[in-house]
């Protein structure tokens, strides 16, 4: 039982960490598709 609960916790922690890491990589369309000539 203990290993199962630890496993669930580990899953949630890894998933949350991944979520935070990905949100830093996430680019909105206006940033991704703009050139130097654009003033947003």
């Amino acid at each position, binding site marked *: 039982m203990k290993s199962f609960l630890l496993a669930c916790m580990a899953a949630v922690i890894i998933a949350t960490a991944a*979520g935070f890491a*990905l*949100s830093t990589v*996430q680019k*909105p*369309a*206006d940033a991704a598709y703009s050139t130097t000539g654009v003033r947003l």
Partner: protein
Amino acid sequence: MARMKFLCDADRCIECNACVTACKNEHEVPWGINRRRVVTINDGKPGERSISMACMHCTDAPCAAVCPVNCFYTTADAVVLHSKDLCIGCGYCFYACPFGAPQYPKVGNFGSRGKMDKCTFCAGGPEADGTQAEYEKYGSNRLAEGKLPLCAEMCSTKSLLAGDGDIVAQIYKERVTRRGYGSGAWGWQTAYRETIAS
């Protein structure tokens, strides 16, 4: 009832992008979202052709078919619209669309790509016609006011036609007959053994 269609007359399109600008301005489309775009084939070479392309409002819309949450619907005018409230941003409609019409506010598909946005034929969305809520999500609803899409209205050469399919076809047929060749329209070569390069 009218069956709404777009037709871009590739012989008249001069790649001025007035249609793109009109659409962006009218619906306050954010930067990075391209509801309408002008594609130029054989750019710089003799015989270059430009076509303005947005959502084609298909009869059996592939976007609607693959949407996992069924957020698309077709109006009585055969305009294909969708609900941004139901959209989960999975990106499948873009994989199915032959014309690349769906646009997303986020680049990565982490959880969601954001709410899909696309050409609405200036017909808004499921919210009540002409309301602020509808405008913020989908842009202006010109069809509800009895007007046609602004891209076609603003076209400088009247190459982009939008409206009742029968009337659009009639206009194009007049042009084609007057020109005497098919502008690459499908079937012309089969029927008349004539192609644009002859």
